[in-house]
């Protein structure tokens, strides 16, 4: 068997079998396409993408049913805390760092909510339904976001 030969039919057949094995052993999550489509649906060419950081386990406070998500871009960190408010609904409290009074949109499958952070960088969406959500932060442009996050399950 020579390494420098072009791929032959047996190689392709083997690769097909390897593909099949990986698709069986480690299938992609059923909602991955949906999440990707949701994140792209705004078609917003943001200047920057804020990436989701490792989720902090809030074990000590788990009885309060809160969850904190941190998104980091070069020029901005967005932290949100999700708190269950009963009736299956959630409250979102957020901070921007460095603090700036910027407009923030929470995109949902069902529509969008918009708010503006205060001088300390704090913002809130008092009542949302659980489900996919994406944050967009606006600075210079009223319609083109400065920063977008990936879509995450809220």
């Amino acid at each position, binding site marked *: *068997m*020579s*390494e*420098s*030969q*072009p*791929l*032959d039919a*047996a*190689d*392709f057949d*083997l*690769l*097909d*079998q*390897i*593909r*099949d*094995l*990986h*698709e*069986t*052993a*480690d299938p*992609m*999550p059923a909602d*991955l*396409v949906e*999440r*990707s*489509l949701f*994140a*792209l649906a705004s*078609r917003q*060419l*943001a200047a920057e*993408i804020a*990436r*989701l*950081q*490792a989720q902090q386990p809030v074990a000590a406070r788990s009885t309060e049913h809160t969850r904190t998500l941190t998104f980091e871009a070069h020029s901005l960190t967005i932290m949100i805390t999700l708190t269950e408010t009963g009736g299956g609904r959630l409250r979102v409290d957020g901070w921007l760092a460095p603090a700036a009074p910027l407009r923030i949109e929470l995109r949902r499958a069902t529509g969008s909510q918009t708010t503006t952070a205060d001088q300390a960088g704090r913002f809130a969406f008092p009542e949302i339904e659980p489900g996919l959500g994406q944050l967009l932060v606006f600075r210079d442009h009223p319609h083109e976001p400065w920063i*977008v996050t*990936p*879509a995450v399950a809220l």
Partner: protein
Amino acid sequence: MTSTGTERQAHLAGLLERARAGEAGALDGIVRELTPLLWHVTRAQGLDTADAADAVQTTWLELLRALHEIRSPHALTAWLVTAAKRESWRVQRQRRQTVPADTDDDRPDPRPEAAEHLIADERRRILWNHVQALPARCRELLRVVAMVDRPDYSQVAAALGMPHGSIGPTRGRCLTKLRDALLADPRWSKP
């Protein structure tokens, strides 16, 4: 398989052209076609399932910003594979910095050993075991190359550092190793 790959290429080429012209639904079509490939790229880089899903999504967001510079479906696939690898490295760098070594999380993450029971068929399990016995770099390369359509091989193989002959990608060290191992295994080579 080859003809299927070629048809898919033509389909992707059409989608890419329409996406570049700004047609929203065309980009969705590309996402549906190529998300499985990106999943296996990020998983082959060693990301856990949650990180891999995020990295795939971020790669799509990055594509949105680079769409104007990608002109062919081969280039699209190669660009996506490279971007997903780079995104995976970024996640891993960041995890090493922030996660203390002793707090291994318990998110489900099918390791090779765990996956074995999913493969019931004897012959497929033999192949799986031989693939797992390859060096890590070969496992990663074959996993990604196996997910790529034939017409994309040249450019993706180049993006992955696979050897390239005058008329296209060559078998290379990894496939040669695997085929030699299979040939030497009486359970595999018996008719």
